[in-house]
């Protein structure tokens, strides 16, 4: 108590946030808030938040491939679309929700592996270009397969409905479902990246030659990263459909892939928080900019990306972390009390 | 008269200072060997000299202060740097590599003559004149790198570990060529080398670096004779 007083509120705050129990408490509070939101918000807000979570899941998968393994992908919308169409087909034919969810994951994993095995042989630009081909091929293919996809009209379906015992409205139930699945996906990604796989991908990003010289099977890990990205794209697409009840060819388009890349970088790579911020940026910004002048969001996206690249290369989440560290750092020169938690935050992010 | 005078040079990478005040001279027409153990700051000294990293202190070349000039400006004044193991443009042909060295010269006939002179000096290059530089052996690339530097008709040739990764026989050949070069091309040299015996055999002056400072400096012949210096700093 007296020591905290001596170090001032900054040191105390730093100590407090560094403590494991504090983190659990903070996490629990955040979770409680997220769960409580739908009971007090309009159906529109619930939909928007569900879309943010769905997109964040897709970005998290992209982050594994692009952020951690260092391979730029411009094909994520293809998997997002496959996931959404799987859901659309399943719900349209009265399948139980878990079945179409499974279909989304399986299809994306298969498609991911098929594309990944040849693609990972290429480096840098060539890899990016190959992934570019995915949405370009997928969009006309979806129109062609109109008996499956509804063609240019798309599929409008009734998705998950709130069970009577819950006493909830559909939008509330759907939000909670999306939140639950999203949380699980983020946890899985965290566990995957915390261990051996995460270290291997980091090494591959830094230097493929160094990675293979210490015995890491580079291509196998790149296939893994690509497949993870594909599966997350599929789950994101499925969640998206569940919330919005509609899937059209637009969700496969290259523009969406590009927007996802922009969102990921703006939010901040190699950061779960960055994925959420990026997704919120993508979903919520057009609501504001397009209200002012329709079609202005492209300009805003581009400018935002360039500004982020110039000013905060670590993205908005990186800027937040830096701001937090600065807040904790005492105005006195270099207090040891403030340093450890900020370092730990960087490491865990 | 000194062609190059470095006084109290401080430089490093980011916040980490590697050189803590290095003083060094290369006489007009002379060869200075810069010796020292791994991590003593030899390569850093050359990088600072050529404007590739941030530096403080004073670097006077040919009567002009070059401390704050850019790499390309320094090169244009007549400092030709052959960096460690990366002295060639890997995807360009041998011929193009040599011509890049001479790109800033206007005297075309003389450039052609110098090109021939290089090829005569290293026939291995003549044989592979059209091959991409990166496809050649380490020794050939080192010769090409030296020739590319010479093609600019420099006043000072700066060599960073010319023996790195080369077989002893090849190394010997490169150093023999260096001795010939000084007389034939009228160029002064600053040579960084791990292999002290080799470097001292071509140099007339030597400076020994230790932890970013000059520990010993003197005529090469004298350093060769000082067993204490050799044992303490050069590991021979």
């Amino acid at each position, binding site marked *: 108590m007296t020591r905290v007083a001596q170090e001032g509120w900054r040191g105390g705050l730093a100590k407090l946030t560094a403590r494991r129990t504090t983190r659990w408490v903070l996490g629990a509070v955040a979770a409680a808030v997220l769960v409580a939101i739908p009971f007090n918000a309009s159906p529109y807000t619930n939909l928007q938040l569900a879309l943010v979570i769905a997109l964040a899941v897709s970005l998290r998968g992209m982050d594994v491939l692009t952020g951690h393994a*260092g391979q730029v992908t411009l094909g994520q919308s293809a998997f997002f679309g496959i996931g959404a169409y799987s859901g659309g087909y399943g719900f349209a034919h009265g399948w139980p929700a878990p079945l179409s969810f499974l279909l989304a994951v399986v299809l994306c994993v298969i498609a991911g592996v098929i594309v990944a095995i040849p693609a990972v042989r290429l480096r840098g630009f060539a890899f990016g270009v190959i992934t570019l081909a995915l949405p370009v091929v997928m969009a006309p293919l979806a129109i062609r397969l109109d008996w499956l996809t509804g063609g240019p009209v798309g599929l409008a379906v009734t998705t998950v409905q709130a069970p009577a015992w819950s006493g909830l409205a559909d939008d509330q139930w759907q939000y909670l479902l999306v939140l639950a699945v999203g949380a699980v996906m983020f946890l899985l990604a965290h566990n995957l990246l915390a261990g051996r796989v995460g270290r291997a991908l980091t090494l591959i990003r830094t230097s493929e030659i160094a990675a293979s010289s210490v015995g890491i099977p580079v291509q196998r890990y790149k296939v893994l990263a690509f497949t993870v990205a594909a599966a997350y794209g599929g789950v994101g697409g499925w969640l998206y459909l569940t919330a919005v009840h509609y899937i059209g060819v637009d969700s496969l388009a290259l523009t969406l892939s590009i927007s996802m890349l922009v969102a990921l970088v703006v939010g901040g790579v190699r950061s779960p928080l960055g994925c959420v911020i990026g997704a919120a940026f993508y979903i919520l910004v057009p609501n504001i900019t397009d209200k002012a002048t329709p079609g202005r969001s492209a*300009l805003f996206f581009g400018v935002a990306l360039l500004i982020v690249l110039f000013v905060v290369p670590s993205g908005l989440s990186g800027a937040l972390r830096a701001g937090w560290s600065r807040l904790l750092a005492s105005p006195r020169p270099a207090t040891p009390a403030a340093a450890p938690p900020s370092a730990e935050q960087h490491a865990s992010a | 008269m000194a062609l190059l005078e470095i006084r109290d040079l401080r430089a490093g990478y980011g916040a980490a200072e590697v050189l803590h005040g290095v003083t060094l001279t290369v006489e007009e027409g002379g060869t200075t060997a810069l010796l020292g153990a791994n991590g003593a700051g030899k390569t850093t000294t050359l990088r600072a000299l050529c404007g590739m990293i941030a530096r403080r202190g004073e670097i006077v070349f040919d009567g002009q202060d070059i401390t704050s000039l850019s790499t390309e400006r320094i090169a244009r004044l007549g400092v030709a740097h052959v960096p460690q193991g990366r002295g060639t443009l890997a995807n360009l042909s041998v011929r193009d590599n040599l011509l890049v060295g001479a790109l800033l010269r206007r005297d075309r006939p003389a450039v052609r003559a110098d090109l021939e002179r290089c090829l005569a000096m290293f026939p291995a290059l003549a044989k592979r004149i059209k091959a991409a530089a990166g496809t050649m052996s380490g020794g050939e690339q080192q010769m090409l790198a030296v020739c590319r530097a010479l093609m600019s008709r420099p006043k000072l040739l700066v060599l960073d570990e010319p023996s790195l990764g080369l077989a002893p026989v090849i190394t010997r050949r490169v150093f023999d060529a260096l001795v010939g070069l000084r007389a034939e091309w009228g160029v002064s040299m600053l040579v960084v080398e791990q292999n002290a015996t080799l470097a001292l055999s071509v140099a007339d002056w030597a400076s020994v670096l230790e932890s970013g400072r000059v520990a010993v400096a003197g005529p090469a012949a004298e350093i060769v004779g000082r067993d204490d210096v050799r044992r303490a700093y050069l590991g021979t």
Partner: protein
Amino acid sequence: MNIVQQVIDGMTTGSIYAALALALVLVYRSTGMINFAQGQMAVLSTYLAWAMSQTGVPIVLAVVLAVVIAIVMGAVIERLLIRRFEGREHLTMIIVTVGLMTTINGVVIWIWGADLKTIASLFPSDALGLGSARFTVHDVGTVAVLVSVIVVMQVLFQRTRLGLALRAVADNPQSSALSGLPIGVLLMTGWALAGAVGSLGGVLIAPKISLQPGMLDSVLIYAVAAAILGGLDSPIGAVVAAWVLGVVQNLAGTYIPLVGTDLQIAVPLVIMAVVLLIRPQGLFGRREVMRV
């Protein structure tokens, strides 16, 4: 429709890809990167040419002015934007040019809107006949301009000091600086030249497919495919690859029922994927020498 006609149509389509592919190759050869914003830069200069022609400037003069502006624009973009990220890894460079692409797209929509515009062609659209095949003066003119651009590029890169300097900087900027080459000026030159070639492509294409902000989006993808197939450092390779892609795409769309007109845009990409897997350095390119 006979097969000769199909081939000619394919070559015309391919020429469109080729123009942009040449610009990509130029940037790659002088700076060692792929500029995903090349298409949008060309769109912007085409809009400028259109805007000038709307005020009564003759189309030829408008195009010349637009190309000049494109040269300046290329140099300025390199100096103010790309230079900041020079030497970073591919990932960053791709993202930077993607950001540039999105920004220019937004600017174009903001100023001119998203609706179709009609722009006059540099060449008359009179029909010509060769046997049973039909094509227009515009088609022939497009091919002629392309061939001249290739010749100029080839001479520039292989026969001039500027070309050698550009190749040296693309290979290794730091090493080139040690030979005294003015790196910054050369990088700007590469972008300026690419801006010119790209904008030329834009004004050649626009009369055929109507001027609109997204007119080069799919073309860019094929141009990238052609440039990569051609080996990225070979202008001739890029153009030949673009023509091959155009012809094969057209033939496949017509004669393979499974492909049809809707899926024919996938054909070049499939070809590219297959070729890259067999020959990662492209059809005409030299294998890049990797340093360990």
